């Protein structure tokens, strides 16, 4: 059934390719101005050409395109197991600065502005990757930026405690990674290894005829422009069916042996941010599954955790604290959703959220995720005979939720979280030192004051600015009509289904 579905999606996709953009017929090279994604893929990773920030000597040009192609290949090789993923490399034209900016390409792919050859389907994920590259002698200096989101979906999560609801989301969805150094020799070695390791075969057999996955589009220093992409159609044991799209719009479908060293020599060691990007794909996949009321696959959640942990281990927490913090949050959320039991999921996620909070103590969402996951966990603890929830040190919890609200004054939800916590306090048993408890009369008054207060943020209309700048999706105001994932309700559904 699933294969038939995938086949039909593939057929639709191929038909779309045949019929799309007749004006482009006969134009073999499509630049950034007409970006493309596999609309049928749950998550697409789109790698923009790395901008060469300066050229020291003639003949050095081309590394930006070559690097983005290798990144696309490397990421693809590590996200195959998530299934229904696509990877696309955009290529530059002479007008790079204008056409290949993330805000131009990203907004087209998310259907916010016209001009894309194919757009991300509603609810599906997009990871946009771009960067800078500078060559000097035998070295390359690389800095990567990445943004992840789902089209017309918020990354908000709803937590519960004692019949009250609370909302939070990851701290950021736009990450500037630390700059790294890579030798040109290493890049060449990785390139060679890829070409040898990644063979697309006609049949799912190691002795079937095949050709290198990169195929005729391998274009390191050529002057061609266009796009190339890969889409994972399905998995059959150790074999994966892949469709490659060439820059002339021709396609090739074949099989890749996933256990045969697909990734070859990996770029990830030199550029650990690729682990983050791969993990972000896993995170988005788990959110898409959860929205469809399907429990994310635990194997995939483990892969997500491994990839994000690999990033955290190799990252420079001082130079890229937000990246490390978000990696922990995504690991926590993916694990929380994949674990069958809510308490087990919260026990897994909460320490990760707390580490993230310590890294970016100024970030409201980092405080909220850490605090709410702890509160939600406490609400699951066995009740005493009074049947009331037991709250340890409620004053400290209130202080944290107040801090989150203070750090994000334009966010009504942050103040609602504090309000709802006070409502929980009124029907809970407080424990801990007297100084850390709250007076219920004060709490009642606080509740009244919050209910009559209003928000007057100074920074407005960020959503409107998003077509001119690529603003962190986590900072955009979510449409209240958008679906929010209620973690407790989702888990209840899963339990019902399993029975």
């Amino acid at each position, binding site marked *: 059934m699933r294969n038939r579905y995938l086949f039909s999606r593939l057929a639709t996709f191929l038909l779309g390719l045949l019929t799309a953009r007749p004006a482009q017929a006969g134009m073999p090279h499509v630049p950034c101005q007409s970006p493309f994604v596999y609309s049928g893929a749950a998550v697409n990773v789109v790698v923009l050409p790395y901008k060469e920030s300066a050229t*020291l000597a003639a003949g050095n040009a081309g590394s930006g395109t070559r690097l983005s192609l290798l990144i696309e290949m490397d990421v693809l090789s590590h996200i195959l197991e998530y299934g229904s993923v696509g990877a696309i490399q955009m290529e530059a034209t002479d007008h790079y600065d204008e056409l290949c900016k993330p805000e131009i390409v990203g907004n087209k792919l998310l259907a916010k502005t016209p001009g894309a050859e194919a757009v991300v389907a509603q609810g599906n994920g997009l990871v946009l990757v771009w960067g*800078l590259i500078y060559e000097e002698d035998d070295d390359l200096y690389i800095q990567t930026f990445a943004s992840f989101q789902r089209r017309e979906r918020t990354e908000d999560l709803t937590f519960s405690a004692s019949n009250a609801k609370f909302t939070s989301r990851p701290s950021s969805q736009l990450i500037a990674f*630390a700059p790294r150094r890579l030798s040109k020799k290493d890049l060449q070695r990785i390139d060679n290894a890829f070409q040898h390791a990644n063979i697309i075969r006609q049949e799912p057999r190691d002795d079937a005829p095949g050709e290198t996955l990169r195929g005729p589009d391998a274009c390191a220093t050529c002057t061609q422009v266009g796009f190339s992409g890969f889409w994972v159609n399905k998995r059959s044991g150790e074999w994966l069916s892949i469709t490659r799209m060439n820059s002339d719009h021709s396609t090739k479908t074949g099989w890749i042996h996933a256990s045969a060293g697909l990734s070859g020599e990996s770029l990830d060691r030199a550029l650990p941010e690729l682990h983050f990007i791969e993990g972000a794909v896993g995170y988005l996949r788990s959110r898409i599954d959860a929205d469809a009321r399907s429990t994310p696959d635990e194997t995939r959640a483990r892969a997500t955790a491994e990839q994000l942990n690999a990033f955290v281990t190799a990252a420079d927490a001082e130079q890229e604290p937000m990246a490390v913090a978000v990696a922990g949050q995504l690991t926590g959320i993916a694990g929380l959703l994949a674990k069958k039991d809510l308490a087990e999921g919260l026990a897994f996620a909460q320490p990760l959220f707390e580490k993230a909070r310590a890294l970016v103590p100024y970030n409201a969402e980092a405080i909220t995720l850490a605090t709410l996951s702890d509160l939600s966990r406490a609400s699951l603890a066995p009740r005493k005979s009074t049947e009331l929830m037991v709250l340890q040190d409620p004053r400290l919890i209130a*202080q944290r939720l107040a801090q989150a609200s203070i750090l994000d004054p334009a966010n009504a939800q942050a103040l609602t979280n504090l309000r709802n916590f006070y409502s929980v306090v009124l029907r809970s048993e407080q424990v801990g030192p007297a100084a850390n408890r709250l007076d219920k009369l004060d709490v009642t008054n*606080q509740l009244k004051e919050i209910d009559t207060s209003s928000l007057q*943020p*100074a920074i407005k209309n960020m959503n409107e600015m998003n077509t001119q700048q690529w603003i962190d999706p986590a900072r955009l105001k979510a449409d209240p009509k958008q679906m929010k994932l209620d973690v407790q309700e989702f888990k209840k559904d899963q339990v019902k289904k399993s029975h």
Partner: protein
Amino acid sequence: MAQSTNRFIRMTGFCVVLLSLFCAEPVRAQLIACSMPGTPEEFKVYLDDVRPLTKTVPPRLRARLESLARSLQENLKVAVNGRAALKLCDKRFPLDVSDFTAQVDELDHMRVVLEIWGALGGANGDEGELGFVLVPARSLLNPVVFVAKDDFKGPMLELVKKYIELGAFVPVVLGTTFYQNDQFEDAISPLCEGETKLQVAIAKQGASQTPEQKAFVQHEKDLLVHVQTMVNVSLKKLKDAGKPQYKALAPDSGGNFSCPK
């Protein structure tokens, strides 16, 4: 031109430490207007030219400078993140840091919160400078122009990292602007972000510093104290105003408020 640019290189080191009053030349050419002026309402970060000043700058270091300028531009885009607009001011460049003394009020009026320029010069063409005008800090600090000096022959990766860290000034100036406009609620978040980032930048400074680098770090430390004071004052005022979320905050043993730790 060459004479005035050499003078710029010689003089800026002193200007970092001392108020530009002592260094100002009597006659200055005005800075040309930014080629991307923007709207009157938006907060702006001006990125001026980052340019070599002398013919002695070797091609290798010119390429480094060009690369660092690009890097700064991309990282500033992320740092402002919708809170301000990054404006690339083509051909705008100070002949002397004191150019900003006359312009700082005008910049403030235009809601420019931060202006950055870069230069490379010196006898061997390896003396790099990155200058920052922290416009709203003019009532707090003297001077409001920070100049970071670097030997451009050093490891490139370290240079890039250092340039990126200087993005810490973005939240600091945004928070300071809100604070000065009595928008205390909006000031807290950028000030706390700036505080954390400044602390990291200060802690990472190596022990072997030139006098100019030491002066720069001291300037950052002074700024950090001001940031912490602004946070304390803002939170006190907001708590006194009685908004419910501020009532939950507790001061430290000295009666002061601070950013979450």
